């Protein structure tokens, strides 16, 4: 069953004049159909202003569709009586970890969500423990969040969402402000949540290497979905991606250059390991 089902989903940002009349409307999401299966890892790519964050904010009903419908786990996001259930089903993690952490101690911060939901306190602490362990931050439970590195803070923010036991997590450029190590930590955590806990993941990013493990990649442009498929299918279309202001992983780009220079390599190489193995075949064939 689809945990996220969008049908002709559209959203307009409105610009009001001084009298509160609509002066200008700009369509950010344009009649999107989208199905995400429970347990999938879906990556959303697109240039700045392509509509991906606007789409993401619909999934936990921060924004409501101007036209069309969006069902999250079978619930229409426009049904106000289901709002809290929807927000519990789909948690969000944003770009800047400093804007998402409110507690003075790591474990209190992670417990804030479930406490707010009225979870009994014994259960809160069980959830705090399991969520912090899931993101590898249990040993920092009694630290102050502002002494942590960017990657650690972001993992605490993810634990805070995990503690609410969502079926789905939407991450909007969670690594944009992090150093290489922080980026690795966060992506590893997200992959593990998806594989071990079977949480559905929607990851928005500008780093192409982060999406090669996704089940599905969606490319957005001008509010529409313009490409979708497995990472291999999408990244084999190098020139098309460039036309959408995007990129491909470096290994894919090297393979693309080598193909252009006449080497017989398959399309859609995603990682260094794959490329090295293919090159090794070429070398063996020569000798």
């Amino acid at each position, binding site marked *: 069953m689809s945990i996220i089902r969008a049908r002709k989903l559209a959203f307009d940002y409105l610009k009001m004049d001084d009298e509160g009349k609509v002066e200008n409307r700009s369509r950010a999401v344009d009649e999107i159909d989208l199905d995400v299966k429970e347990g999938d890892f879906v990556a959303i790519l697109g240039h*700045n202003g392509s509509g991906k964050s606007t789409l993401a904010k619909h999934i936990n009903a921060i924004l409501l569709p101007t036209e069309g419908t969006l069902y999250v786990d079978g619930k229409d996001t426009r049904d106000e009586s289901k709002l809290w259930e929807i927000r519990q089903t789909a948690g969000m993690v944003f*770009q800047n970890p400093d804007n998402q952490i409110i507690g003075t101690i790591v474990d209190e911060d992670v417990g804030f969500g479930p406490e707010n939901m009225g979870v009994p306190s014994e259960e809160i602490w069980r959830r705090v423990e399991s969520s912090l362990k899931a993101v590898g931050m249990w040993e920092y439970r009694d630290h102050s969040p502002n002494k942590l590195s960017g990657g650690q803070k972001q993992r605490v923010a993810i634990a805070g969402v995990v503690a609410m036991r969502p079926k789905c997590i939407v991450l909007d450029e969670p690594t944009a402000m992090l*150093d290489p*190590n*922080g980026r690795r930590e966060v992506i590893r955590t997200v992959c593990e949540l998806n594989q071990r806990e079977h949480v559905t993941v929607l990851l928005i990013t500008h780093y192409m290497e982060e999406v090669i493990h996704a089940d599905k990649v969606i490319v957005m442009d001008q509010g529409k979905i313009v490409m979708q498929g497995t990472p291999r299918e999408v990244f084999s279309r190098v020139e098309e991606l460039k036309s959408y*202001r995007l990129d491909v*992983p470096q290994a894919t780009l*090297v393979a693309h250059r080598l193909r252009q220079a006449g080497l017989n390599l398959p399309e859609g190489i995603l990682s*260094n390991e794959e490329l090295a193995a293919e090159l090794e075949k070429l070398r063996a064939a020569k000798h």
Partner: protein
Amino acid sequence: MAIRIEHLNYIYSVGTAFERHALKDVSLELPDGQFVGVIGHTGSGKSTLIQHLNGLLTATSGTVYFNDQNIYAEGFDKKLLRSKVGLVFQYPEYQLFETDVFTDVCFGPKNLGLSGEEAEARAYKALQQVGLKEKYYKMSPFELSGGQKRRAAIAGILAMEPDVLVLDEPTAGLDPKGRDDILDQVKQLHEERKITVVLVSHSMEDIARYVERIIVMNKGQVLYDDTPRQVFRHYRELEAVGLAAPQVTYLMHDLAEKGWDIATDAATVEETAQAILEYLK
């Protein structure tokens, strides 16, 4: 004509419980016209270091020389220094504050005491240098896209015609094309106006592509200071301090491990493709 740093120490919140030694005995020189990259994990001291370059932070001990003049000496013109060493902070678009883009870019040169006409001429030139189209000049900064705002903010610094341009993660949060556009523009400025560029970045791939020298900061000290190829040879040490080499460097190491007789220090896509083609020739 250069910036020279000698035995620089900087301690945050001296004498309090929050005391932190952010820079420890840092000495280095930035000669004119170089394109230098600064890398280091969060908290390694790189932002603290660059804020010393225009005197925004004052060293706890040690000296900074700008064109052989001690910037801490009495009577040294700090205002002039700040116009000569332009600092573009992270997310500079948050610092746009005027009612339209053009007025915002004029603010810097006007503050230097230039006449309105001169300031406008400089603003116009700077906006052209960052490749922002004229139709945006009279728009509110808030109506621009992320990449455009970032360009406007950089133009605000360029309008002061600095000799040294320091950019703290200028591409964070931008899409790949926006990232390439901004860095290409900076490179062009570097080549045409011969200005020194100091680029702080978390993207090893970007650093490898643009800079001629990399300074690696770790725990407030300079760990490496060399060409990209030399620095990325230490990829295991870089990983140990929270950094990495560009992805292609790992590919070359994979191949070498499989027995390819190939130099492993390629740091860009072009260098890598070239090395592989030559080997398979």
